[in-house]
């Protein structure tokens, strides 16, 4: 079962992965540039036909990670303790019933690396995808699973660091932890948070801007070249400034230089537009209510994946704790999530849990409706959902809510309920990364092997 070579995640592995990713998919991009004017979206049947052999065996794999706040109400979340495919859906998971065959439900998963017994709504989000305990007051966590995958792909897509989406910019600090932990699950490095973009219009532009359809190709070439010159200029200047700074300031300039390099890469490799928004129009940047903001985000994520703008996305359906005074009028619930969790209001919490699951279901069904030449986009993806803590009252990291959908192209044994008594979530990430063809053997603090029982 464990067919991956024994390798730790390192530079060498990264380089070879990047090479592989750059080769795949081969010339689709060039084709799409010319077809962009008339074609709505990639992966239409006509396109798949052009690329049939590759599409059937080598559809891009994607990783999408969802965060929901405040843990879950366990009594209505976990299926009865029957392992395997013949389990019965719990009420909170009921919306996922139509996707049962493509779903992995976990019981007993722990992520104790991320937090201590007295958990926190800050350490939890920071540790959810990193499986590392954050330090304070200085920021230091670990690299997150979505970023390991994104980095393994290199510049195969327009977003070498993937996309990060969120619903709220509210962040708070607890127990002296940096507030950034509260509002960020994606970490490019232990010290570099990748905060989610909240404004849906900005995400839309991230995906679709970069080309002026009215400009001639000569004009476009010239503009690209000028942009590159500007970036070269600011790079040289920043390097000269960096040489005159102290240690910490130098690191800040490193962040800047990494960003400039990423912009350079984008200019060099960016296709004019590999797809068009189709029926999706640019959403407003502000004023969206919570459920609308969520559904708009879902549409944007699907679109970004369809356009192959990125293969790695993280989505925060609320920040850690979500302590805002926000109630849930569309669910008929008054009171805020954090308060309800502390009060263990079972009916209300279960309703919220079920709503979160229904949104995940909606997203996955959209992916499942996209045919990629015999398999669906969901089949070729890994969708992971969890919360920053286990239970919203205990703030623990044991028996967490963990769902996985999709099989990374048939590499994961879905359709079962796995009871993994006290297995570290980091081992699940080793397995998921292996399924995504990233040959790691360790992850986070405690991940030492792929989790048993899920790799085909």
């Amino acid at each position: 079962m464990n067919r991956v070579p024994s390798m730790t995640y390192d530079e060498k592995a990264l380089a070879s992965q990047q090479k592989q990713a750059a080769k795949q998919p081969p010339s689709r991009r060039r084709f799409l540039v010319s077809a962009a004017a008339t074609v709505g979206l990639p992966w239409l049947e006509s396109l798949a036909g052009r690329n049939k052999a590759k599409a059937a065996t080598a559809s891009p794999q994607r990783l999408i990670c969802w965060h929901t706040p405040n843990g879950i109400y366990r009594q209505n979340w976990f299926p009865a303790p029957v392992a395997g495919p013949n389990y019965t859906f719990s009420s909170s998971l009921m919306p996922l019933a139509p996707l049962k065959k493509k779903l992995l439900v976990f019981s007993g998963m722990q992520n104790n690396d991320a937090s201590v017994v007295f958990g926190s709504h800050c350490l939890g989000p920071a540790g959810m995808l990193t499986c590392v305990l954050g330090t304070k007051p200085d920021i230091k966590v670990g690299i997150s699973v979505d970023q390991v995958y994104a980095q393994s792909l290199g510049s195969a897509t327009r977003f070498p660091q993937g996309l990060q989406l969120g619903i709220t910019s509210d962040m708070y600090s607890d127990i002296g932890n940096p507030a950034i932990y509260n509002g960020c699950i994606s970490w490019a490095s232990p010290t570099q948070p990748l905060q989610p973009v909240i404004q849906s219009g900005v995400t839309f532009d991230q995906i679709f801007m970069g080309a002026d359809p009215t400009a001639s190709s000569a004009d476009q070439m010239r503009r690209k070249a000028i942009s590159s010159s500007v970036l070269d200029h600011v790079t040289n200047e920043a390097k000269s400034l960096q040489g005159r700074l102290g240690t910490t300031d130098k690191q800040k300039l490193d962040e800047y230089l990494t960003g400039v390099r990423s912009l350079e890469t984008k200019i060099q490799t960016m296709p004019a537009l590999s797809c068009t928004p189709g029926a999706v129009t640019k959403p407003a940047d502000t004023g969206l209510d919570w459920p609308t903001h969520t559904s708009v985000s879902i549409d944007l994520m699907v679109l970004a994946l369809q356009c192959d703008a990125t293969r790695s996305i993280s989505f925060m359906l609320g920040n850690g704790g979500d302590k805002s005074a926000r109630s849930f009028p569309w669910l008929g619930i008054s009171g805020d999530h954090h308060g309800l969790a502390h009060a263990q209001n079972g009916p209300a919490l279960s309703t919220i849990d079920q709503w979160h699951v229904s949104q995940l279901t909606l997203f996955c069904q959209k992916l499942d409706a996209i045919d990629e030449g015999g398999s669906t986009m969901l089949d070729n993806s890994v969708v992971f959902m969890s919360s920053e803590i286990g239970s919203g009252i205990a703030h623990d990291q044991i028996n967490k809510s963990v769902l996985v959908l999709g099989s990374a192209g048939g590499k994961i044994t879905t359709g079962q309920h796995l009871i993994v008594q006290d297995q570290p979530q980091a081992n699940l990430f080793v397995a998921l990364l292996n399924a995504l063809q990233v040959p790691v053997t360790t992850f986070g603090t405690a991940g030492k092997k792929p989790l048993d029982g899920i790799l085909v």
Partner: protein
Amino acid sequence: MKAEFFLRIPLVSLAFLLGIGAGCKGSIGDPGMPVGSPNGSGTGTGTGTGTGTGTGTGTGTTTGAVAAEPGRVTVRRLNQTEYNNTVHDLLGTNSQPASVFISDSQANGFDNNGDFLSLSPTRLEQYQTAAEALVTEALAAPLRAQNLTCDPATGDSCVRTFLTTMGTRAYRRPMTDAEIADYLTLAGQVRTLGGSPDEVIGAVLKALLMSSNFIFRPELDPDPTSLKPHLLAPYEMASRLSYLVYSSMPDDALFAAAKAGQLATVKDVQTQLQRMLTDPKSRLSQSYAEQWLGVRAIETAQPDPKLYPAFSPALATSMKREVDLYFDEFVRQNLPPEQLLTASFTYVDTSLATYYGVPPVAGTGFSRVMLTTPQRGGLLGMGALLLATSRGNRTSPVARGRWVLDALMCAPPPPPPATVMLPSEDVITATSSRVFLAMHRQNTVCAACHSTMDPIGLALENYDAIGSWRDTDHGMPIDASGMLPDGTQFNGRAGLETTLAKDPRLRNCLSKSLLTYGLGRAVRPDVDAAYVDAVAKGTGAGPVGMRDLLMGVVASDAFRMRRGEP
């Protein structure tokens, strides 16, 4: 039954909890309480440039025996507010491009802490996108005339003119010859690529706006690895002052003062501050006070519309504006900060006047009013604070008490043990807060902190979750009386405010908070205590006013000096 759901704590944690309990001793309103003694009467700089206590002499008297340790300030990236204000002042735009940037995270209560202002590739891309849009806007009518004073067709001579004007302002200092030469090289490259004269100037402006010298505010040390303190360079000081007060780039007077070398002494710096605080460009209330008081995000609060139909985001905006204008008056009039809690004036617009039940005001804007109703007065009667400390469906006396201890006294109680079991929302909302919170007293672990927090919050129970006045809660008349563990008694908001205003921790806390904001770094509990004390003590004669505190901040060695980092 009542107590059993309240605490389910593993035995192992008991010692931990008792330890926390010890951390909650202390009292409010005890004027005899020590606040820490300043380390000498000043913090001598070792370079003979000022006393550090704001006497305005700047003559080189060093009164303290301790060498200055200004601490290390990490290079600061422009945050969203600063970016919007800076491009407005630089280019004349009102487009506020940073409003859609990834939000800046707060650390130590503020969003201007260099250590925590990270720069991810996505954020840098947002700076790039903004720069491109700004170039287009700045070089088109109507802004073109003010931004471009030469004809781009004249080539390098116009680029050079542009750099000496726009470049100086963007870098907040004159550019060096080498920097100008590099920009001319860039201009030449763009020309070679076939760029039009406008594209050449556009590329230069885009590079300025994406430059690390623009996006960051670098401050340089003669030796970046040396711990030896030194005064900031004049232009660096101009930026520290302008970002402190304006949240933006220096104005013409600051540029002129920097050029003339008139920012070297305490007196120089204080003269500028005095001027700036009355300038309409001052953003101190929005950038500082709103964060200090935790009211910046109240528009996004979503109290249950069924329970609180009177609430609207527009009303929350008015509430926040009230806090801004109130704080501004304290700065402008140099009123004692203790009076923040007890003043009998405020600012209202039509909607707030109706909301507070005070006589209507004329016009559409805000008017200064004297409060005659006993229901309002001081910070704690303001809708913004009361809303910010409430839940979506009820008040939280605990949150309000905690807020007072944290924001006003800098003495936040430790968080509750994570396993504390609250009763269900039905139980909480089934009875009045006072009846419900009595449970805290039945448990010594809870009582350690809640015996201070709860009475403070209960004194504000006449204000519901959106700050509306109420006389009853669950049909029972509200009892807003309280007593702290040390025996101090008070009744209602006014009584609480009078008690808090006497607490010497208030001014110290405000001083610490102003220093944190002004320095853009965490205030270290040990090393920086002397700076905090010196600011809180003021300059000597007469009562210490809000402006005096700010004068103390800019006079401190921590503000005027820096050092490197090995």
